[in-house]
């Protein structure tokens, strides 16, 4: 039976590992903290102003040489050539920001060259409090794309994305738990693997996510969640609560 994936998301500013809060850099760490053997998958996001720097490409290379799990890489991908550089340096998949949906033929071109399985479409959402509805945000969460998350996801998948990663920007770094309402709303309408990001503060939040929705993977970027024994203990907790995870 397929296992639920526990995925680590690492954000880098000028080659330095940061935790983010509401999409802004917060605490800094070192990559040596990461326990490379317990994780199921790794996502590396570049939040630097200057993208595709030598620094960042070397980081992808470092992880590719040291942990034999899938590595997805994102941050500022606007052309097929941008994606080419990331794949060449060790990425197995690319993560496209929500704004990439407006780049003509970008998803189509990447999926034609590398396959649907090589694209994770990030769906960065925000709740509009006036009408209590969700909207998708582009440009690192600053620009309202005026699209609802379900239609947005269906469109991305039809164009060639393989997986959807849902994030509520307001939950990013909050440690208050995932936005289950949003995640459920999207996952019920979509027939592809879905990952959720944003808000994991403890193992119970992961359990809530994996037991109350039928998504494929839980992402966390809280450093305390993946140092030393912690992924191991998270998996034990999930297993004890009847969630199928990899040993």
């Amino acid at each position, binding site marked *: 039976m397929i296992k639920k994936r526990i995925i680590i998301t690492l954000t880098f500013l000028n080659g330095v590992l940061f935790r983010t809060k509401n999409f802004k850099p917060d605490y800094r760490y070192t990559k040596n903290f990461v326990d490379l053997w317990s994780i199921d998958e790794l996502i590396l996001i570049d939040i630097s102003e200057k993208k595709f720097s030598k620094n960042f490409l070397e980081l992808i290379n470092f992880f590719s040489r040291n942990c034999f799990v899938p590595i997805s890489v994102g941050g500022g991908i606007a052309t097929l050539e941008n994606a080419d550089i990331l794949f060449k340096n060790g*990425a197995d998949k690319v993560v496209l920001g929500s704004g990439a949906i407006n780049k003509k033929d970008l998803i189509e071109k990447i999926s034609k*060259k590398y*396959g649907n399985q090589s694209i994770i479409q990030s769906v960065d959402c925000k709740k509009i409090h006036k009408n209590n509805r969700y909207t998708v945000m582009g440009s690192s969460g600053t620009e309202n794309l005026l699209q609802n998350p379900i239609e947005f996801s269906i469109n991305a998948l039809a164009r060639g994305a*393989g997986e959807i990663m849902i994030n509520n920007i307001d939950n990013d770094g909050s440690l208050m738990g995932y936005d289950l309402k949003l995640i459920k709303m999207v996952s019920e309408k979509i027939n592809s693997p879905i990952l959720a990001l944003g808000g994991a503060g403890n193992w119970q939040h992961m359990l809530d996510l994996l037991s109350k929705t039928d998504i494929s993977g839980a992402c966390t970027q809280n450093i305390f969640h993946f140092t030393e024994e912690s992924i191991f203990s998270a998996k034990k907790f999930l297993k004890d609560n009847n969630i199928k995870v990899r040993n």
Partner: protein
Amino acid sequence: MKLGVIDLNTGNLASLLSALDRLNLKYVICRNDLDFEGVDKIILPGVGAFKDFMKKISDKKFDKILIDKVKKNTSILGVCVGFQILFSSSNEHGDYKGLELLKGNFVNFKDKDINIKVPHVGWNECDIINKNQLFHGIKNNSDFYFTHSYYLKDYNIENVVSQTKYKLDFVSAINKENIYGVQFHPEKSQSNGLQILKNFYERC
């Protein structure tokens, strides 16, 4: 023994090479026909669509080389789409012929059940049906990393090494004589995956 890794310039060869480096296994990269000189063991990694992958192979005339090498007893390990093209055909984006070294056709999981989530992405168990050197030292039902949307039908059951459950049981590893193939990515499956590559190098 000389191991050749085929490079068709599709996607990420880097992770497979990292895995071989980690195991201290020596290899040459095969980018054109001259590179196959003296090669007597081959890994054929593959990503992307069946049709595009097969076209790249035939454009470079690697299809003839591979079929010829296999006849002359060179062991080959196909990975993911490299596994799929060892077989007769796939209906991905039409109906396309593979290398036809093994009998079987690939169809989409959605042809079986429209509600199955595709691609099948993630860690899943390999249930070993027939004991094989490829899985030497690997516990039954160990997890490997998969990412694919098509599964094998109309195959010879006696060639099946392992199967995996994703709503239905599909073939995840195969072996007939010197032909080996795995649907999962050994280079992305940590210790178990590294062991598969080591086994192929040392035992197959």
